[in-house]
């Protein structure tokens, strides 16, 4: 188990335990984090799990893949930090990460 924090649109920080190997989206849905829905079940095809990941975590979370990029092309509040959290797998190295939830 590692600790991850979701900061929702209202500014509230939700620190939760996350199982290694889970998708970050699944962790959020499991904890009913507002703003993360995962309508497509985690295939980067709906953009309802959009988060901003701070740049210092990017070596661990990796870069966007093509499907993610295509969906983010028409999402809201897209920045260089934008990721679909269904494409980020929880690992030991991700312990302590804080991501911002983006309204979709």
């Amino acid at each position, binding site marked *: 188990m590692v600790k991850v924090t979701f900061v929702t649109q209202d500014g509230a920080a939700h620190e939760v335990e996350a199982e290694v190997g889970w998708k970050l989206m699944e962790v959020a849905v499991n904890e009913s984090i507002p703003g993360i829905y995962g309508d*497509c*079940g985690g295939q980067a*095809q*709906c953009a309802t799990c959009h988060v901003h990941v701070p740049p210092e975590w990017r070596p661990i979370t990796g870069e966007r893949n093509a499907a993610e990029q*295509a969906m983010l*092309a028409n999402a*809201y509040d897209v920045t260089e930090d934008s990721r679909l959290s269904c494409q980020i797998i929880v690992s030991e190295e991700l312990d302590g990460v804080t991501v911002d939830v983006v309204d*979709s």
Partner: protein
Amino acid sequence: MTISVPIPSLGLTEDQRAARERIYAAPLAELDPGDPESFGAQQMYWKFERLRAEDPVHFTAAEHSEQGAYWSLTKWDDIMAADTDHETFSADAGITLHRPPAGPVESDINYEANALGGQLRSEDGQIVQRERQDGLIQSLLSMDPPQHEVHRGAVVDGVSPANLKAMEPLIRERAGAILDALPIGEEFDFVEHVSRDLTAMTLATLFDYPQEKRGKLTFWSDVMTAIPGPGAVVETEEERMLAIREFFEAFAGMFQQRASQEPRVDFVSLLAHSPHAQDFTFAELQGDGIVLLVGGNDTTRNTITGSVYALNKWPGEYAKLRANPALIPSMVSETIRWQTPLTHMMRVATKDTELGGKRIAKGDRVALWYVSGNRDEDKVENANEYVIDRKNPRQHLSFGFGIHRCLGNRLAELQLRIIWEEMLARFPEITVVGEPTFSHNNFIKGYDRMTVVIPRRNG
């Protein structure tokens, strides 16, 4: 014969059983799930049920269909696979199965050139003219990348989370006014007085169109998807084309007016002030206009009506909702699944491909039947039942997936949530009288009329 939605847990009526038997007795090759007749009669469910079990990726030859030859995808996973592979399954030839495309045969078309240029070219590069169904000449819904992103990107802010937040009090106020004006203890048409009016007002706001003329917007939208005939919104194809032309002229006028004004967040202004506006062709703008018009109209309207209908058919679910209004968002998602207001999206294969063990050839038309995938028992437990507190209610196919996913899905959910919050606050019950009239349409799954009575207000 009374036409009703089948409720398997209650058993089928005699008529329903007979219809189902007929469908199962027919030769499989002749099965035409896109036949509009079976939608009006609510008999498509058994065609899809049979296909999911016996022939999930099904081919209907031209001789067995008024829609021309086409493939049907009926299982969730196959629909998902095609919906999310826009390179193999292009939206560019029009998105409905409405009728066979006129003009050259599909194999003559060079889709690569098509995706970039937005024009149909034959292999030797010659531009060929082809009529597209529903007047969907070119639009953000029927475009492939990269053009798609330019058009969708132009209007996406019209339904941004911030804009929806700003619209919420307006929608709530309108919903309240509509509901407060309804008669008590007297029968009325719910479609006309509630569903149609609320969504028309929202549509007028989205287009920044005069509210007092909003009926025009719903008229034009209905015309776009209508199958002309006696009793339909337009009775002949000529009448239909005339009405479509009227919309195009109005839309062009609005576009010119908005272009000369300060930018705002309505769809027309967003298009007019797009950095790419000067590259938009008239045909593209017309197509965008139609998609934004239709997308924001029938779909939400029919889902609002469908929610009242389904809660009446499953009174135990209505009781759950009354006892616990916190279930509204989940009920809204379940209704969107159960209703599936757009039955399908049509795609065209850009290359030879294989799906479910069948070989689909380049140029073949493929219907992605959301209405069937949403009833796929391998994916949705008790899929033919309406269960407002089911697990994962948001996981349904009704909005589509991938780059063409419904632009206004949040707005649809918002309107449904608000109307139900306001209805529950006012009325202990809205009772459906008899059966609604189901739309005779293989694309728009909905209701032409639904008589209801509100017995009393909350005490």
